[in-house]
């Protein structure tokens, strides 16, 4: 046989990364090999992952809030953060979600909109993985339309009283702290809420068919009394939580690519070894066409993600650009996962291979952090000047 390359080696796109970025990618890949890859299908089956242990391990490395500066964070580039997300999600989307929610949602919200006191209190511990954070924007009745949120914040003397509920909150069942968004008379406001505050209850959402190596919950806020200092002083209006989502979506642009790549690598290996009609199924032209087409999408997705990363590092990244990346890369990743499942045949549905797990995970990734449909509307609004959802 001629010498082969991996799907990511096809165009030698690694050459576009700096030594530092490649080294970070390499370290995360090794960590995933050592701690996640061989275990994650058990976690998935049991619907339970050792999230605190993972958070501590990730904290030691500097993964949590790695793209933020100061307060114990690593201060890495957006591209470095991207390649880390890619390697995390090549292991499992749920594991990448843990890092995204901690770093891009909870920590970013405090880092960007918090008081100095809030940053000092929470960020170093969150960077080490000692405190786990979550982010409460979505509600049972308000998903794509967060402006209609029902959770209310009202003043009582100098205190705030929060009332309402938040749904589909990653990390909530084991989190120490939540960034909660609520509507006050003066508009949407953010609050840093320790989850042991009286009036807060968290319920774990069971029976998920996706992201089973991740913990998801509902947060109920029953007249929760918070001091004025709990409010994020710099967050005024819905723009604040939406900017956090842009951060997290950027990680998904890279992450989903990792899940797709892992499926494709698995399918190629399988096709080389699986014998039908007396030869490896990789010999059949239909299989070869599938493999070639998928490899194209992995390469194009990488170029797209890298472009967004370089724009982010130059401070030029816009929310529409991130929508392009999220829409394309997640949509292609889930197509790749499903196509790879066909190459693996019946073995494709087995937990012994990562493909079905990735496919199921990507169903969530397609929807959370802005559904594909919302991203289509964001992109088309930019192109036509007409907003379809206002």
């Amino acid at each position, binding site marked *: 046989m001629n010498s082969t390359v991996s799907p990511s080696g096809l165009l030698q796109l690694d050459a576009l990364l700096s030594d*530092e970025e490649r*080294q970070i990618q390499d*370290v995360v890949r090794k960590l995933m090999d050592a701690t996640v890859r061989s275990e994650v299908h058990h976690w998935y089956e049991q619907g339970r992952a050792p999230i605190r242990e993972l958070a501590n391990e990730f904290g030691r490395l500097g993964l949590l809030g790695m793209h933020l500066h100061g307060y114990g964070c690593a201060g890495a580039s957006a591209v470095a953060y991207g390649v880390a997300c890619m390697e995390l999600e090549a292991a499992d989307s749920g594991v990448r979600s843990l890092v995204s929610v901690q770093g891009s949602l909870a920590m970013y919200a405090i880092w960007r909109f918090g008081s100095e006191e809030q940053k000092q209190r929470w960020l170093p511990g969150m960077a080490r993985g000692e405190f786990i954070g979550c982010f409460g924007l979505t509600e049972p009745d308000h998903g794509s339309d967060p402006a209609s949120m029902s959770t209310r914040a009202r003043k009582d003397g100098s205190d705030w009283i929060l009332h309402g509920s938040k749904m589909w909150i990653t990390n909530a069942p084991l989190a120490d702290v939540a960034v909660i968004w609520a509507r006050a008379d003066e508009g949407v406001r953010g609050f840093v809420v320790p989850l042991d505050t009286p009036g807060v209850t968290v319920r774990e959402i069971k029976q998920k068919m996706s992201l089973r190596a991740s913990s998801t919950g509902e947060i109920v806020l029953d007249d929760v009394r918070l001091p004025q200092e709990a409010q994020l002083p710099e967050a005024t209006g819905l723009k604040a939580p939406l900017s956090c989502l842009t951060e997290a979506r950027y990680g998904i642009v890279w992450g989903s690519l990792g899940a797709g790549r892992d499926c494709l690598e698995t399918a190629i290996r399988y096709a080389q070894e699986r014998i039908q009609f007396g030869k490896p199924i990789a010999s059949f032209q239909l299989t070869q066409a599938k493999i070639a087409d998928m490899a194209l999408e992995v390469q194009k997705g990488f170029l797209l993600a890298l472009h967004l990363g370089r724009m982010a590092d130059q401070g030029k990244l816009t929310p529409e650009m991130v929508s392009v990346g999220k829409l394309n890369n997640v949509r292609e990743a889930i197509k790749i996962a499903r196509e790879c499942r066909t190459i693996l045949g019946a073995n494709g549905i087995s937990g012994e291979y990562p493909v079905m797990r990735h496919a199921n995970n990507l169903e969530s990734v397609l929807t959370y952090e802005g559904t594909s449909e919302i991203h289509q509307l964001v992109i088309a609004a930019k192109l036509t000047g007409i907003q379809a959802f206002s």
Partner: protein
Amino acid sequence: MKIVVLVKQVPDSGAERNLRAEDNTVDRASANNVINEMDEYAIEEALRLQEAHGGEVTVLTMGPQRATESIRKALSMGPDGAVHVVDDALSGTDALGTSKVLAKALERLNADVIICGAESTDARGQVLPHMLAERLGVAALTGARKLTVDGSQLTIERQTEEGYEVVTAATPAIVSVWDTINEPRYPSFKGIMAAKKKPVETLSIADLGVDAGEVGWAGAQTTVKEHTKRPPRSAGQKVTDSGEGGVALVDYLSSEKFV
């Protein structure tokens, strides 16, 4: 405590490695060059000593220009700085010549403890620690699976095929380690980003007072005259089980010291 770790860049032992037809040296140009695996354990041990006893950890490498990649990787794990001996005249240097150059560099560094891997995955000679100890006139504590430090007293457990020996020496000394000694850390992201700002001193053989005739092809005391590829594996030994198969298997495994 001043600790120096010897780090060698080698071709990745996980990939196919070749010797060059023209001069019987390792083909480094086409290989993926990495830190010698055993040296990562040496770096980890040095960092643990530093964490427990304070002081400074310096990486010492002799190798071509591209060895700087491995030096930066070594620094990303946590050492404070590095010395890189790089000189065109060093091409073709054998183990004796290497020990001469490294000994000169080590004299300048004045280390209390020198730590290195027990062997490199390319040459696998295991001779360098002994040569360095001889040249420097310090103790050689080689093949360690454990190292403890009490003041200026070093104690190792030297791994042997049958068990281990306890060996002690006073500083300064050279310690070579096996991969049983610890579990090397992953470089943290802060470490990776800090590595490029750490000082790396570059020295030529002239800086070290070594004459070009003593090293390289000219100074080599040993040469590789020819090389051939290892023949493909021959068929193994078959044991036909007539009730005693298990015993034959255990006998074989114990004779080969697998159990």
